[in-house]
């Protein structure tokens, strides 16, 4: 199997580190090459890391509720940087409070994410879809 590279990080002013740590371990164990930027990651850092590491996908986490504000323009920045069609997932508590999931999902699809995951997501729920999307 070809080794695919994932850039992982928690966007914005968000410091929730536990899920990020677990995703790093799980994706690595599943055979991916994981570049973990940790918490408090700006859009710029995501874009630069993806270019530098020639990444196949960007995995954004947001737990603290500000994802709506933090993610605006990220897809555009990737396009501008010439990697506009990179696969991009997001997961966590994406809005403040709990809203109808279908609305949340649509909101983030419109922001350019290919898949959107609710907070109770376990790594094993994601890995098969990731493999399928990356063709491995």
């Amino acid at each position, binding site marked *: 199997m070809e080794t695919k590279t994932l850039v992982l990080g928690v966007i*914005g*002013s*968000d*410091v929730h*580190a*536990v899920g990020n*740590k*677990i995703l790093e*371990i799980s994706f690595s164990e599943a055979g991916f090459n994981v570049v973990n930027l*940790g*918490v*408090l990651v700006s859009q710029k850092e995501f874009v630069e890391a993806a270019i530098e590491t020639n990444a196949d996908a960007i995995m954004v986490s947001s737990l*603290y*509720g*500000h994802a*709506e*504000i933090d993610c605006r323009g990220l897809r555009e920045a990737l396009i501008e940087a010439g990697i506009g069609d990179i696969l991009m997932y997001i997961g966590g*508590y994406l*809005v*403040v*409070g*709990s*809203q109808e999931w279908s609305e949340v999902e649509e909101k983030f699809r419109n922001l350019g994410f290919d898949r959107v995951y609710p*907070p*109770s997501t*376990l790594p094993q729920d994601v890995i098969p879809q990731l493999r399928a999307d990356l063709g491995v």
Partner: protein
Amino acid sequence: MVEQFGNMKLDWEKLQSEREMVLSSWETGKDVVLEEAVSFHRSLPAEKNFSHRLLQARQQGVTLAQPRAGVADLNSHIELLQYLEDEGGADLLPTTIDSYTRQNRYEEAEKGLEESRREGRSLLNGFPAVNHGVANCRRVVESVSVPVQVRHGTPDARLLAEITLAAGFTAFEGGGISYNIPYAKRVPLEKSIRDWQYVDRLVGYYEEQGVTINREPFGPLTGTLVAPCISHSVAVIEAILAAKQGVKNITLGYGQCGNLNQDIAALQTLPILAQEYLKAEGLDDVIITTVFHQWMGGFPDDEARAFGVISLGGVTAALGKATKVIVKTPHEALGIPTSEANAQGIKATKQVIRMLQDQVYPNNAQLAEEQEVILEETRHILNRTLELGDGDIAVGTVRAFKAGVIDIPFAPSVCNAGRTMPARDNDGAIRFLSWGNLPFSREIQEFHRSKLAERGRIERRTPSFQMVIDDIYAIGKGMLVGRPR
């Protein structure tokens, strides 16, 4: 002359130029007038002073309940607090600050605030107090009849403290370690400790004017498998740092681990350790109370199950005789709670603590053993920290973090070694699978090893990081110990 870093009382006169700079870093800073603030504080009735209310509770032997809560818009925030007081019966109120303000990103907070008003819902995860400014914040204090505390997670909280204390808040959470290591990535410890010395010195100034402001280091840290010796060490250090700046009323915190015996032992040893080390520093006129945080890690998403976790936390707070308990809500795993869910968390908790308020958790051998372990572990850490600082706790703390002598699990900060691996033992108490550089004695090391070996035997697996992962998910799945399938 460059100021020397260390645990020394800041000179108030010399601090004035720094204060000017801080106050001019955002436009609302100019409204801070200390004399006016002091006279406002003096005009407040005693029952709206946080320290006073805590002392009263400690004397009566009861546990007070306090929620977390904050939304972007001022009027909505006031309504929320009033609801939590009237419907929820909150004994103490919070004002939880949003995450942009916590990172001093006031422009982004402003954007979030505007957008929240436009959309009629909060897009911020808290109340941007700096952007609201002194006069608006004072409306918060004036709109409720119980004391209000600022709760946040800000490495550099100098401006936030200036504004909210001037507004009349009588309690301020945080500290140079507890609001850096779990809440930041690249802020040097020297800087956050120094910035919090500023905050504490400001509180000390109010104290000099006869206005007591309660200070509370953030006990639970990352909220995830933090053993008592770690959070106790941080709590004691922050108590010393605060007291040195003239703070006189300190509430030390501890986040529920889940094993009743360990939790009660932790609550009981916390003030003992604080008093011991404060005294050794010659700081013995400080009033210490305790706060218990209901489970701070991942919650079950089912609301009824969440009520179970909340109530068990209430039981522990009451039996451990915490002065106050910070309450979670049945929406914990769903998102920022509605005001109704927030009130429900308080009500379930108060029912439990009031049913237990006349009851005492009996002394017993297991409890005594657990107390001994916590005392010894914490003393190892604190003594080594003092050694590393050649007797200066501030200097020692910076070196201790670098050396992994203090080490907070799952912390995002680069100042943190991150070499320990905590896991539950077979009874659910939090132990160390690896203790990294924690300066444990042979006996203590052996204690941890044997406790986890016992669990391994019963689960028929070798203790490993998989246990840690299983423990992280366990409470969400309805257990305490993350057993294998």
